[in-house]
């Protein structure tokens, strides 16, 4: 028999896939109503996804839920960030990033969920929620800033070199808007990221007996934190704008993706979602 959970996941998957297809078509064909459809698909997907996340918790505690669940949460927080930025800045170009990202992460959660195993005893309660939640939110913000940064660099180059704007580029917002997304992501993302890292260390002490275990994931994350801190400082204290923060955020995001995928899958780490 098909379980209701499976049905919910299939529905979420369908909505994100349709949203991705619609936004790609809408952007390339410069069709406004298609983009609107894409946004509504993403919003519906977001709501259904939230329901499936709540349903997934039924009968479980933090200790017994599947690893795939966390990736589904990450995928959901991508949409959460996007909808927030969309509401705050009225930027629908971000939907070109949100649905595809959410879809990718959601898909990967199935791969992970196949590996049935228990979370270590150490993963417990509130601290863990704090650790995962803040890091996921800051990852979502980074992804947004990454997209905005790529578009900023592209458009800035066009304007600097005085090339005529063609096709969908005409529909893109002003450079200052991309920069505002970058600012939002840095100003909110860095404290969240810091909170995530710190809570990890605090909780590592009782769980593994020491604060730092020199796990590859910890090393990469610290590197990201240093870069993030630098960017935060330059942006907030020195008032960096435009190109430099855009370039930096792209690097930070790239390293984070490396940490999320390469380290988690190919390196021995006790941060892995897939445990042997």
């Amino acid at each position: 028999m098909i379980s209701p959970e499976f049905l919910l996941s299939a529905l979420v998957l369908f909505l994100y896939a349709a949203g991705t297809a619609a936004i790609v078509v809408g952007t390339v064909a410069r069709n406004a109503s298609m983009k609107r459809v894409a946004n509504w698909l993403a919003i519906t997907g977001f709501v259904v996804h939230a329901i499936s996340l709540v349903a997934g918790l039924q009968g479980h505690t933090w200790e017994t839920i599947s690893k795939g669940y966390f990736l589904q949460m990450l995928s959901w927080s991508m949409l959460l960030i996007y909808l927030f930025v969309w509401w705050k800045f009225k930027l629908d170009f971000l939907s070109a990033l949100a649905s595809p990202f959410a879809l990718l992460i959601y898909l990967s959660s199935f791969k992970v969920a196949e590996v049935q195993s228990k979370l270590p005893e150490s993963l417990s309660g509130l601290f863990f929620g704090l650790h995962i939640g803040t890091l996921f939110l800051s990852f979502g913000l980074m992804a947004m800033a990454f997209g905005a940064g790529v578009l900023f660099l592209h458009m800035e180059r066009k304007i600097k070199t005085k090339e005529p704007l063609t096709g969908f580029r005409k529909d893109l917002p002003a450079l200052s808007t991309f920069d505002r997304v970058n600012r939002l992501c840095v100003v909110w993302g860095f404290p969240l990221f810091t909170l995530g890292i710190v809570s990890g260390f605090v909780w590592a002490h009782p769980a593994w007996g020491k604060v730092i275990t020199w796990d590859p994931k910890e090393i990469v994350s610290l590197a990201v934190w240093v870069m993030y801190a630098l960017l935060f400082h330059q942006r907030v204290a020195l008032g960096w704008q435009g190109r430099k923060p855009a370039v930096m955020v792209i690097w930070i995001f790239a390293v984070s993706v490396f940490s999320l995928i390469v380290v988690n899958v190919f390196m021995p780490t006790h941060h892995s979602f897939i445990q042997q």
Partner: protein
Amino acid sequence: MERDIYLIGLNHRTAGVEVRERFALTDCNVLEQGVVPIDDVVSEVLILSTCNRVEILAVGRGPEVVSRVLRGWSSARGQCEHDLAPYVYTHKGPEAIRHLFRVASSLDSMVVGEPQILGQLKDAYRKAIERNCTRVILNRLLHKAFSVAKRVRTETGVASSAVSISYAAVELAKRIFGEMNQYKAMLIGAGEMAELAATHLLHAGISKIYVANRTFERGRELARQFNGEAIHFEDLFERLADADIIISSTGAHEAIIRARDIKDVLRRRKHRPMFFIDIAVPRDIDPDVNNLDNVYLYDIDDLKEVVEENLAQRREEASKALTIVEEETGKFGQWLRSLELQPTIVDLIRRSERIAQDELARTLKRLGPVDDETRDALEAMLSSMVRKLNHEPITFLKRRHSEEDAGPRYIDIARRMFNLDDDNVPPDAHCDRRRHDEDN
């Protein structure tokens, strides 16, 4: 002889400016009625006269309409008809409709897509109505022309990009800054084009304009005009940090702003972006400035290139627009032909027969199986009802049609009353007329 639409006119392509001046009908007191009196040859007339064109639309019978218009036009300007003839084009029927639609959607303008012409045409139409010179055909034609213009504007990019240097500069500023209301601009030097750009910037919502001019008095004068602030030329670099958009147009022989000056300014303004627009020749701003981070520099040639590019785009879009014009011309021609008596009678009868057949089918379905006799009786009843209901309107139309002038008007009313053209009437249609009714 059949009534037809004629369009007689001249424009910037067929006549030089001296000729256009000589035959302009803008400031004449003797418009429509004075130029082409309405009688049994000409039944409707409208005159559009702008600095680039004169177009006279007339509805009438036979080629005499054209000579009447030409005679009236030249004598209204105290000129000889033969001086006018070589510059004039004459369109009839579909040609005339097409030409009007092209003019209304600004496809025939010197700068394709410029928005003024539609307003001028609306003005001309309003005046023609006031002088009681339009009837059913021109009314419908002009309304159609306005809706074609709207369609062209929304469905094609004919009017979407800037085609003047100063406006192109403002468009670029919007690409960089987005909303203008938290940014400030500075004019260095006070040229005509700089003033124009400043006006556009104010329209776009810029929050403040500074003016730095070598003669402080002149600068202050200009600043007052824009409700801005004049600054002394010596304080230029001091105050440059306050400005996000800088428009420079001094008569200096060499660059007055160099990259190293701007580096310092940028530090003071915490690297917020700056946009320099250099419309002076020789240039005021060293091209190196463009290499700085968060600084954008466009000189007059760059802006010209943007304008050229946009013009080319408009021309490309214009071909799309012509398809729309063609389509609408066809539709209007159909409507015009339907104003004849015979097709309207046919349409009227066909419509009621269709309704009768539909209703019959529905009733038979509800009744279930019936014998042939009942069926024949029902059919006979319906067809006699159709005949009798249509009898009065058709007789009425025939009678009116034999009278002069009234024919098309009543046929048009009948077509609309019975919705023979399957028009979708929007709920806000004819709101002007509705208001008029309420007033009475």
